């Protein structure tokens, strides 16, 4: 009955036992969710299954259709019908969509690449994942959500039996999630087995047939979806009850700290602004949510304000009543701005550096005098923020590349907390973060607002946006479409404003 069985899997890294005698059984043709806190070992288990960690580097057995498998490479696992879509996207940015989908599997005739077939086939797979774009576009032109869908198309094109998705919806907007859910159901009908890792428990409850929970590298249990509910999963994940996911406190709103008046930003010589005529105010101690669809220009607003683009700003910006000129990140930090980007690997972390160096990167001034770094001080400060954020790491000298996704996010947050911001811009702050850690981040938001920090929270997760914001602005097509008070804000109102502007490129 079970298509896949993993028995007694133990996997150790220097300093961490990532998996400790894990048992994992999946039935044929089901959608099986894998849940657990950050660092519980979900990704590691799937990397063992897909041959990323080859046979011999772990203990235990993998059985597919009751046959023992010893994968040495990813190729081996693909030949056995297992395909994995990683938590971190792995597309070649400068190649076309079609080339990416068939990378390593290029259709050929007489030994030469058959481009026509390739584009034709690629278009077919694109349609299957609900993308109506041409497959000869370069991947670098696509947003992160579309790239995710390309990854799925790529996996589908390999005609696999078991497809593993590591947090496929973390970067997707609501309507893209719908597409994905449809795709998953379709796959189930075709008899394909899906293993699905996600921190979004509502989704898990909705899509999956059964769920396995890991905690600290151990299997806590497997349940049919009708035997358990959301809070049941949570308590199995964290080992305790978790109440009140959105600990919103009616923030005491103080004087204005940030004011934008007709703010537009033009990159280099381009005529089209990356943000267009934006006006907004942010008060001390307030959480201002910004909602909108993928590509609405929310990230661009934040990045441009933070000085991340080169170009020219129009309109005026005031911080604490003082005029602020967009120059560069250095100046922005000096003025008390901090920006937690949505793409932590690309913009948040130097992956090859250790936890301590990443944490202090934006605040080296604090731990050095005359530009000489006080290394002891550095470790001491990092230790402080690590404890506060509960980063799970073997040591402060561990490279962040080896941390689990959620813990990497916590390091990025530590980095910006350390810079002591007056205005904190959070761009998808809980992407890929487990429920426990999410709640910690929300509590942190409360703590900061209590200290008078103004927070702008960009989020595609509506429950979070509604749960934590004092006011919500909705953006579309680089403009502000409207503002909703706490009372007015609800799912429909936001979506209406978000789609009320011009038509968004994708249709489905």
């Amino acid at each position, binding site marked *: 009955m079970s298509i896949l069985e993993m028995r007694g899997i133990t996997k150790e890294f220097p300093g961490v036992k990532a998996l400790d005698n894990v048992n994992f059984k999946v039935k044929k043709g089901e959608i099986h969710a894998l849940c657990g806190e950050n660092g519980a070992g979900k990704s590691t288990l799937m990397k063992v299954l897909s041959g990323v960690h080859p046979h011999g*580097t772990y203990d235990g057995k993998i059985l597919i259709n009751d046959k023992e498998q010893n994968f040495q490479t990813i190729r081996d696992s693909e030949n056995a019908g297992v395909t994995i879509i990683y938590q971190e996207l792995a597309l070649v940015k400068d190649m076309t969509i079609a080339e990416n989908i068939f990378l390593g599997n290029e259709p050929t005739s007489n030994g030469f690449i058959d481009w026509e077939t390739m584009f034709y086939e690629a278009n077919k797979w694109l349609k299957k994942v609900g993308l109506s774009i041409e497959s000869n576009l370069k991947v670098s032109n696509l947003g992160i959500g579309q790239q995710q869908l390309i990854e799925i198309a790529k996996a589908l094109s390999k005609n696999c039996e078991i497809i593993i998705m590591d947090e496929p919806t973390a970067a997707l907007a609501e309507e893209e999630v719908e597409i994905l859910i449809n795709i998953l159901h379709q796959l189930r009908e075709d008899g394909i087995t899906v293993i699905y890792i996600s921190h979004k428990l509502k989704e898990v409850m909705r899509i999956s047939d059964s769920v396995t929970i890991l905690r600290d590298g151990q299997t806590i249990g497997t349940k049919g979806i009708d035997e358990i509910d959301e809070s049941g999963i949570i308590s199995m994940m964290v080992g305790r009850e978790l109440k009140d996911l959105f600990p919103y406190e009616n923030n005491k709103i103080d004087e204005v700290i940030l004011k934008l008046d007709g703010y537009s930003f033009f990159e280099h010589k381009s005529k089209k602004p990356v943000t267009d005529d934006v006006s907004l105010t942010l008060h001390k101690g307030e959480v201002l949510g910004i909602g909108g669809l993928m590509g609405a220009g929310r990230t661009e607003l934040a990045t441009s304000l933070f000085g991340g683009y080169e170009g020219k700003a129009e309109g005026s910006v005031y911080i604490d009543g003082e005029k602020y000129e967009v120059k560069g990140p250095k100046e922005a930090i000096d003025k008390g701005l901090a920006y937690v980007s949505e793409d932590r690997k690309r913009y*948040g972390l130097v992956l090859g*550096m250790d936890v301590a160096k990443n944490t202090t990167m934006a605040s080296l001034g604090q731990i050095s005098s005359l530009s000489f770094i006080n290394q002891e001080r550095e470790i001491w400060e990092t230790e402080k923020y690590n404890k506060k954020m509960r980063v799970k790491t073997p040591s402060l000298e561990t490279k962040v590349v080896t941390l689990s996704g959620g813990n990497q996010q916590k390091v990025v947050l530590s980095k910006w907390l350390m810079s002591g911001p007056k205005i904190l811009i959070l761009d998808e702050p809980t992407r890929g973060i487990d429920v426990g850690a999410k709640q910690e981040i929300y509590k942190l938001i409360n703590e900061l607002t209590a200290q008078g920090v103004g927070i702008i929270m960009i989020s595609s997760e509506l429950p979070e946006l509604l749960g934590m914001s004092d006011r919500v602005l909705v953006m579309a097509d680089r403009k502000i479409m409207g503002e909703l008070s706490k009372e007015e804000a609800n799912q429909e109102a936001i979506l209406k404003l978000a789609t009320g502007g011009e038509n968004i490129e994708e249709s489905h």
Partner: protein
Amino acid sequence: MKNRISFKLDVRAYTLIIALIMIFVVFTILTNGDFISSRNITNLSRQMTVIGILAVGMTLIIVAGHIDLSVGSLLGLTGGIAAILQVWYGWSTFPVIIVTILAGILLGLWQGWWVAYKGVPAFIVTLGGMMIFRGILLGISGGQTVAPMNESFRVIGQAYIPYVIGYLLTAVLIVFAFIMVARKRKRRQKLDLALSPVSFDYGTVIVFSVLITLFVYMLNRYHGIPVPLLILLVIAGIFIFVSKNTTFGRHIYAIGGNPEAAKLSGINIKRNILSVFVIMGALSAVAGMVLTSRLNAGTVSAGQMYELDAIAAVVIGGTSLMGGVGTIVGSILGALIMASIDNGMSMMNVPPFWQYIVKGMILILAVWLDISSKKKTAS
């Protein structure tokens, strides 16, 4: 939470040292002990200085994610400028040194400006520089060898430190090392941070002291510590400190590791890249003067292909061409390995063509070893 700091050995540095010891043993056996004679040790340490100085700057450049192909020409040109100023214009040594270093800085500024502010890839800018600087050298020298240098200038590349001062410097260095370790331990204790065992900390210093004393003794049995070696050590010391303990050093590593994240952390990429090229220019000038002094002449072909030796030394030393990773200690060891192979094979009268082949093989092997050891620890 005392054990949060892992107790860490620098595996790569130790592999390099082991490789070096093996090379020493092999050549010592093959040359019946001549290889580790005082005289040859002295020669060897003089031979490695020019590439060593270049390798220090090259490490910073490569760690920052760039490359400098012009250092050979830059070195030739600055060395030539020094010779011309002294021989043709009769300048005395001190102003020559100052002006030559300034010339190096200026040329570094030129290249750094193109790379940092105009966005032209360093590979192209310095490939251009390689031709331009050699061209300028050919032009200003008219293709002639410019010689001879003053007695005082020859000190830079040829003189030796008197025995007594040599031992004195060694003693100072050893005392300094002990003080540093003690201070570090005290500060960590105060902040309640994890400490490596006392025996390990002081053990390393003791081993280091014994080795350095032995080395100086060997040199002193011949003529003493060569001045150029001292120059290299001082430069290396300064930049090891800079790379580890200053914000500038940290910025370089961050930029090489992930320029976008570095930029959004408020690091000024352009200025830092410019600085790196300026440092490279200044160090090339120093290396140029050492070479001119040693040859007692400025020649048109001085420093040809040195850029490749410097890059090879850096890469053998474990610096990644992708940027973000690397140490100056490693690069110095890399330079020493390259020089040892040159020197040992010359002593054995191996024809030059073999020397090239062997050095090339070593380069590939070293990087392969590095990569495969990294793979092992990763999975």
